[in-house]
């Protein structure tokens, strides 16, 4: 046991001697911390309301009440667990959480964080999105705690706090506000310093009273102190942390340049010798801050656009139980509960519409702005908004399991991911910085010997400033952010940068049939009236009504069709389901059968002359249903899985893009061939009667031929082939398994989005290459200029910021180029 008085750190629970302890009051209670990093983390966690986490942590450590921890009752403990669980996901020891990290400026910051955290024992995965500063972390709870990880991040100079994609609001604003203040201060100081510096320059050429010269120099120096140390604080701080973590970023270059300009000038003022470079120091900081401000604003704009998803948060819902309405919190919602919604409400859970009929706005998920009418038994999707009438709904999924939160997570993942090219850039820029520091030093020595300090000094500063690789660092993530954001607006979710690169290389498209090229929903395609005397609106309406008793795709198709046709239900009685064959009921006192051929034969319905027709329909892949009244056939209903309206057009456009198309289906061969014919494909482009294994074998074969296969599918049986193809695209209404196995999800569930996906991928990829070219171009052209003393430091700072801004602006321009390309394709 340690000697002397020891306290537990209130953040990381480390036992610390009193002497080394930091004691700070937080919200009126004195807290103990082992280090400033812990203090910082504690305050941040407290601020975001995550302090319940500490109580849980203590409980788990088996610590007593000594340190102000509360003994928890079992319910309270369960509640804490739940709160912890809101941020930390995963059963067993492997946990997953999303963090938001502040104070990240550049690729090197990201690199430093990733390098250090990934090296910690127990951390399995850690990646930061340089665009949104959000990160995803997976760790082994047995080896390391989340607190330790947050602590380490704070230790190297960044704030990190837990963040949930579907819960937290972006806190970008606090940071931008701080940046705005500093930028304004820097602008004001730079302006005034420049004005006074003009006096000094004039004095240099025309002569000046030494007393006035000294006075102006002193004034300028005093003004520059806040200009460098207040306005430039984020840069100096960033540089310091970079150095401590031994991974220099652009801040190191700027700070070295500014500080050397500042201290050299101070020395000249004090000794009354030589010129001053205070204006340089100020302008450097001003331009860097300006570049950062423009970047932050652009990001804020994009994040706000994507964050419309996160605005869809509600706290309470109305539960209906035995006719009584109770307000319950969203966390309490469980499958099976009946909830009530009014027009304007956002639906927070998935469910089946139980009572009422209303229109929904599903645009958040699908990008489709037209309202969708839904009624009894239809699926209500979380994230949609009720538009017109009151309704109740039976919950099928709540919380993490809903479609909406799964999509949110996928979106978050997609923004977190980095393409291989951007990872390479991160690593290169760190080495680049070392090289520049050396280069700048060498140029200083050379110019000092060949021209004196007056030239050597500005040259060295120019080299440092111009070489900042920040444009290079943001080139890829910025374009990716805009590209994926734009495609999302059109209902195409591209999961990550790697997928994007694969999409561009695609040279073979493979489609699944059912649910992909066809709607996958049974619909009535034709109704033939066989007996004018017995057929009536009333019969059709009561048939629609009777079919509500059966949950079967065919029944659903009949119900939907006749309900729409007759405009309402009519009463029926004596309902009977005749398992696997059809139904029996009475309408207007007459016995009615609706079902397949076997039912009709068994019930003695006169089907002479209809048998061959029904066989024929079955052979075509359709489902024939016969309706008989009093043993007389009255209606012949043809039900089929319809081809998607945009299927033919999509295939034609893919052909125009020069991509060969293939259909792999589990359906019967003749059905697949007929579909191919209708869609204008030749028979050698289709394969029928394939098992899921056969499908994967086909994909393997194509890949072995060196083809980059893009597979479009839905449903469980497509999941393996979607995962195996170089890019898998799944329809938004597909099964959850296929959603997770594919790189692209068509949230709006339309086939034409396949073409849009390709267009977006190509435009974004082109933009990335353009950005990288321009960023490199700046560095390659400008460094020699700086070395040969053509460029003075102020222009260097301007050019540097311009290169970052041009990358940002060029990326934003992607919105327009992608839109134009889409219009050319006819969308």
């Amino acid at each position: 046991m340690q000697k002397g008085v020891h306290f537990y750190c209130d953040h990381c629970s480390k036992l610390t001697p009193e002497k080394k302890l930091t004691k700070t009051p937080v919200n009126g209670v004195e807290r103990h911390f082992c280090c400033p990093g812990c203090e910082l983390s504690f305050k941040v966690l407290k601020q975001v309301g995550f302090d319940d986490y500490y109580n849980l942590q203590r409980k788990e450590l088996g610590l007593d009440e000594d340190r102000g921890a509360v003994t928890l009752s079992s319910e309270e403990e369960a509640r804490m667990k739940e709160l912890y669980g809101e941020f930390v996901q995963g059963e067993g020891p492997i946990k997953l959480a999303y963090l938001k990290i502040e104070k990240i400026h550049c690729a090197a910051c990201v690199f430093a964080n990733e390098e250090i955290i990934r090296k910690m024992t127990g951390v399995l995965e850690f990646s930061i999105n340089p665009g949104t500063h959000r990160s995803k972390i997976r760790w082994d709870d047995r080896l390391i705690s989340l607190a330790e990880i947050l602590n380490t991040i704070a230790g190297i100079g960044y704030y990190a706090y837990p963040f949930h994609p579907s819960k937290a609001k972006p806190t970008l604003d606090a940071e931008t506000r701080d940046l705005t203040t500093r930028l304004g201060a820097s602008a004001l100081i730079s302006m005034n310093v420049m004005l006074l510096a003009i006096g000094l320059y004039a004095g240099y050429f025309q002569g000046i009273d030494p007393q006035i010269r000294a006075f102006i120099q002193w004034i300028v120096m005093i003004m520059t102190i806040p200009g460098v140390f207040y306005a430039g604080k984020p840069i100096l701080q960033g540089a310091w942390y970079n150095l401590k973590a031994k991974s220099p970023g652009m801040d190191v270059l700027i700070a070295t340049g500014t500080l050397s300009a500042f201290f050299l000038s101070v020395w000249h003022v004090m000794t009354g010798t030589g010129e001053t470079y205070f204006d340089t120091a100020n302008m450097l900081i001003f331009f860097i801050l300006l570049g950062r401000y423009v970047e932050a604003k652009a990001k804020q704009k994009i994040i706000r656009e994507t964050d419309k998803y996160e605005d869809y948060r509600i706290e309470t819902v109305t539960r209906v139980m035995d006719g009584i309405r109770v307000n319950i919190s969203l966390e309490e919602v469980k499958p099976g509960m009946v909830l009530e919604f009014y027009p304007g409400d956002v639906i927070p859970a998935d469910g089946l519409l139980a009572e009422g009929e209303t229109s929904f706005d599903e645009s958040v998920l699908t990008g489709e702005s037209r309202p969708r009418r839904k009624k009894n038994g239809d699926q209500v999707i979380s994230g949609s908004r009720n538009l017109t009438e009151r309704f109740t709904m039976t919950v099928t999924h709540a919380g993490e399991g809903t479609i909406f939160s799964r999509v949110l997570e996928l979106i978050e993942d997609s923004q977190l991911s980095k393409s291989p090219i951007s990872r390479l850039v991160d690593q290169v820029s760190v080495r680049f910085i070392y090289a520049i520091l050396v280069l700048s030093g060498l140029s200083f020595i050379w110019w000092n010997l060949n021209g004196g300090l007056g030239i050597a000094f500005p040259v060295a500063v120019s080299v440092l400033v111009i070489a900042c690789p920040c444009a290079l660092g943001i080139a890829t993530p910025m374009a990716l952010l805009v590209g994926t954001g734009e495609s999302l607006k059109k209902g195409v979710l591209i999961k990550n940068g790697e997928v994007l690169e694969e999409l561009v290389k695609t040279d073979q498209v493979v489609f699944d049939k059912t649910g992909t090229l066809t709607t996958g929903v049974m619909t009535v395609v034709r109704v033939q009236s066989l007996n004018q005397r017995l057929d009536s609106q009333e019969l059709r309406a009561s048939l629609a009504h009777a079919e509500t008793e059966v949950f079967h795709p065919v029944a659903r198709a009949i119900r939907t069709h006749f309900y729409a046709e007759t405009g309402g239900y009519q009463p029926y009685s004596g309902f009977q389901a005749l398992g696997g064959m059809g139904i029996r009921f009475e309408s207007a006192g007459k016995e009615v059968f609706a079902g397949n051929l076997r039912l009709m034969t068994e019930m003695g319905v006169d089907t002479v002359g209809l048998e061959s027709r029904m066989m024929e329909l079955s052979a075509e892949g359709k489902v024939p249903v016969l309706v008989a009244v009093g043993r007389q056939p009255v209606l012949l209903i043809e039900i089929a899985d319809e081809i998607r309206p945009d299927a033919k057009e999509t295939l034609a456009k893919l052909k125009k893009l020069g991509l060969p198309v293939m259909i792999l289906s589990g359906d019967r061969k003749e059905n697949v061939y007929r579909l191919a014919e209708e869609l204008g494909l030749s028979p050698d482009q289709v394969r029928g009667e394939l098992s899921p294994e056969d499908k994967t074998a086909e994909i393997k074969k194509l890949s072995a031929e060196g083809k980059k296969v893009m597979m479009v599918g839905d449903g469980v049986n497509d999941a393996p082939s979607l995962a195996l193809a170089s890019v898998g695209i799944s329809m938004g209404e597909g099964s959850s398994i296929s959603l997770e196995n594919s790189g692209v999800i068509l949230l709006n569930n339309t086939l034409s989005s396949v073409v849009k996906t390709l267009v977006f991928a190509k435009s974004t990829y082109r933009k990335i290459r353009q950005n990288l070219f321009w960023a490199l171009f700046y560095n390659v052209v400008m460094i020699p200029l700086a070395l040969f003393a053509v460029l003075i430091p102020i222009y260097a700072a301007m050019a540097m910021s311009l290169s970052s801004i041009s990358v940002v602006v060029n990326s934003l321009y992607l919105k327009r180029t992608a839109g134009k390309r889409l219009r050319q394709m006819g969308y």
Partner: protein
Amino acid sequence: MISIYILILLSLLVAAGAFVLYLWAVRTGQFEDLEETKFQIFDEDDETGTGSHPETRQPKP
């Protein structure tokens, strides 16, 4: 030549005043969302205050 000392110091005071004004503007969120203002006339101004950006909607003192 005394005037130049006075004028320089005076200009610094004016600049400091401008900075205080600027600080006020930043603190009260004037620079927060430069796009939002032009859409404000479309906001429904009812008591629950739906439709407007929650951050730019400051409670009245």
